[in-house]
Structures are given as structure tokens and as C-alpha cells.
């Protein structure tokens, strides 16, 4: 982990999560990447507040929720519409609960708790969140077994089940093996991959489309060049960007999708 910059947050692209430390609130520590959606965030806040899911302190939770959204905005992290929809829902529930009870209504029993629908959704969601955890464990175990290396099959069969793109993909993987080796070397060097990623991100954000040829030409050393190359790979892997190439052997453009 890098140490905090002025903005007091750091990105770890390997994990593709962002960790926010500080902000105005006392001890709000949030890993953005850990939240799969607004329900996930809500569950987190409810647990953090040690509240009972069947009796959610809606005012407090709403406040925390909005605080989180504001923090995201301040950090220029785009807030998905779904998070805003949930914010609106929370505010609506909160206001309903503040309404004085209709004196003509008979008993408490007949009045539906405004929180009920949300609680049902949370409970339903949490089951699938647990199931996702189970799947995660399963795939971890499964990815540890390997099947045999391919055997060349029937020699009489002239048909080959491969395309020219398989060839390119395979070659890129071989090249990537070399990159991995180089990457390991440079991790001990002063050039930071995180800085390179940030530079490239800023550039893409500013001008929308970056020529990789130009970007690479700016590099002063082989190491920087390789770092720049890995930064491109990382950004392509972790963010919504697209590489386009107009002509064979031509320049490659990286742009926002």
C-alpha cells in the first residue's frame, strides 16, 4: 500500500478496490470495492452501527449512508444511480416514520412498518451474498486442480479447431510471461506502477483518447517503458477503456468507453 497523498486515499489496482481513510467523519474506513451495491453498503452500515436488522435505526443509518455518498462524490468517485435510488428510498422511509400516527387508525398491528419492505429485501439479498461467498470458496479450491496437458488427437483429422485469433492470443500470453518476469524486477525500482497508472488515467480523463505510441515515446528508459506498458494493461483490465487500432502495425488508441 502506498502512503496517503493529500487527498488521503490510495488505490490498489491489484485488488481493484479503493480504500478511503479519513474524511471528515471520525473513523470512516471504507473499501469501496468491497461494496457490490447499495444493499451491500446498507448491510455494512447496519453491522457497523451494531443495529438490529429487524429494527433499523433509520435516521442514523440514512445519515451514515448519505455521508458515504457525499464522500464518494468528494473523491470524484462516480456514484452509481442505484446508490442514489437507495438514498431516496431511505429518506422516504425516514420521513414516513416521522409522520404522526393517524389517531383514527385502530391498532399498531394494522400499520405496516415503513421499513418492512427494505428489511425483506435486505434479508433476501443477504442470502445471495452468502451464496456468493460459498461460490468464491468453491472456485478457490477448484482452481487448484489441473487436467492433463493436451494430447494431439487423431492424426488423420485434417480439421484444426483453432483460429488466427487463438494464435494471436497465445502469442500475447507468451509475451506476457516475459512481462511478468520483467514486472517482478521493476517492482523493487523507484518507478511506481501506481504513479504511472494515475498519470495515464489523468491523461485519459483529460483528453478522452490517448495515443499509446506517443505515451510510450515519452518514456525515458526501458524500465519506464515497461512500467507504462503494464500500466496500460492494468487500466485495460480494471477499467472501462477500449484499445483501438485503425491499421495493422498502426498506432493504438486508448479511450474511454
Amino acid at each position: 500500500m502506498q502512503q496517503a497523498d493529500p487527498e488521503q486515499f490510495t488505490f490498489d489496482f491489484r485488488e481493484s478496490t479503493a480504500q478511503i481513510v479519513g474524511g471528515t467523519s471520525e473513523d470512516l474506513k471504507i473499501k469501496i470495492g468491497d461494496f457490490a451495491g447499495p444493499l451491500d453498503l446498507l448491510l455494512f452500515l447496519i453491522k457497523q452501527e451494531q443495529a438490529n436488522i429487524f429494527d433499523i435505526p433509520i435516521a442514523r443509518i440514512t445519515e451514515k449512508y448519505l455521508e458515504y455518498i457525499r464522500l464518494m462524490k468528494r473523491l470524484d468517485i462516480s456514484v452509481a444511480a442505484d446508490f442514489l435510488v437507495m438514498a431516496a428510498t431511505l429518506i422516504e422511509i425516514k420521513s414516513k416514520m416521522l409522520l404522526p400516527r393517524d389517531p383514527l387508525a385502530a391498532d399498531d398491528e394494522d400499520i405496516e412498518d415503513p421499513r418492512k419492505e427494505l428489511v425483506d429485501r435486505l434479508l433476501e439479498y443477504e442470502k445471495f451474498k452468502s451464496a456468493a461467498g460459498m461460490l468464491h470458496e468453491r472456485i478457490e479450491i477448484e482452481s487448484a486442480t489441473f487436467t492433463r496437458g493436451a494430447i494431439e488427437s487423431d492424426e488423420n483429422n485434417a480439421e484444426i479447431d483453432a483460429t488466427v485469433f487463438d494464435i494471436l492470443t497465445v502469442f500475447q500470453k507468451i509475451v506476457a510471461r516475459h512481462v511478468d518476469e520483467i514486472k517482478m524486477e521493476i517492482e523493487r525500482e523507484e518507478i511506481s506502477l501506481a504513479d504511472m497508472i494515475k498519470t495515464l488515467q489523468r491523461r485519459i480523463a483529460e483528453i478522452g483518447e490517448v495515443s499509446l505510441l506517443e505515451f510510450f515515446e515519452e518514456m525515458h528508459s526501458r524500465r519506464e517503458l515497461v512500467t507504462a506498458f503494464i500500466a496500460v494493461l492494468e487500466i485495460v483490465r480494471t477499467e472501462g477503456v477500449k484499445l483501438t487500432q485503425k491499421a495493422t502495425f498502426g498506432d493504438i488508441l486508448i479511450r474511454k468507453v
Partner: protein
Amino acid sequence: MDIEVDQEVAEQVTRTPAELMAVVEALTFVADEPISTKVLAEVLGEDRESIQAAFEEIRNEYDERGSGLQLREIAGGWQIATRTELHEDVRKFLRTRPSAKLSLASLETLAVIAYKQPVTVPEILEIRGVQSASAIKTLLDKRLIVAKGRKEAVGRPMMYGTSKEFLVQFGLKDLSELPSIEDFEDLVS
């Protein structure tokens, strides 16, 4: 045509249990995919019970001699694979890294699809509370899910379900091996 030939041969062949084990092991080894008792029974002209028994016997044998390989039942078939405990050495040799992890969003979406299939995008949104388009794309790219036709409802939305690849990657014999979703209720506090 093939099948006729098979039956002809099958009538002539009588294999001892040991011979059957040997040929079952050999064919499982050359198969590119998990191979079902049904296919093997047809190819070898044997009944499915004998094939099943041979598989189980081979599996036990592998386990007992502490082989570096294991025979496992997966995605409706049987497959020879390396033993899980050896993954570090195997990875080092193959120069592979642990496969790219699925994001939490993708795993959640996959969980919803696995348990609710066939399920539409709006239904997934309802449960997860968040758009799942990019997670669905990832899962389609990884062939973990497949389209399962359209729902007869407004807009005729596409329905999704899990694939055979899902079973393979998650080491499941079939979907019934998934723990029931109600089991997770106990964990919910």
C-alpha cells in the same frame, strides 16, 4: 453407423473387471472433457452399472496409493485431474498464476443466476439492488452463464442460467449439489 460397429464389437468382447477398469481409465485419460458413464457404456458396449463400478474402483485405487492424480466426478462425468494439494508445484511448473478472481459483483450475480435460473436482468436487479450488466457480460465472456431464451413477459427479456462450464469450474456434479439457498438463512442475522 458407429454405434452399429460398437455393438458388433461389444458382442464379441467380454472383459474381466480389471480389463474394464484399464480401458475406462485409458478413455477417461484421452477424453478432453469429463466423460459420462453413459457415453462410455455405449462406446465400450458395457452396461452403465459396470462402468460406474469401474470408475468408483479406480477412484479408490488412486486415493489409496496416494497418487498425484485423482479421479473425480464433475459436470455429469468423470475426469482425471491433479490432486488439489499439489497446486503450488503444478502452478510453478505451468507458470500459471491463480486464475483471475471474479469480482464480488460477478459472484453475487452468478449466485442469483445459479439459484433463480432461468432469471432475467430485471429480476437480478431486484435482488441485488444494483445494475448487473457488466457482471453479466463478464460471466457470459467466461462462459459461466448462458442465455436460456426469452421470458413471456413485457419486453420479452432474455433469461439466463448457468452453463456446463459453471459446473466444471465450481467442481459440481450437477446443480442439485449446490447447497439450498434456504441453508444460507441460518447465517443471516
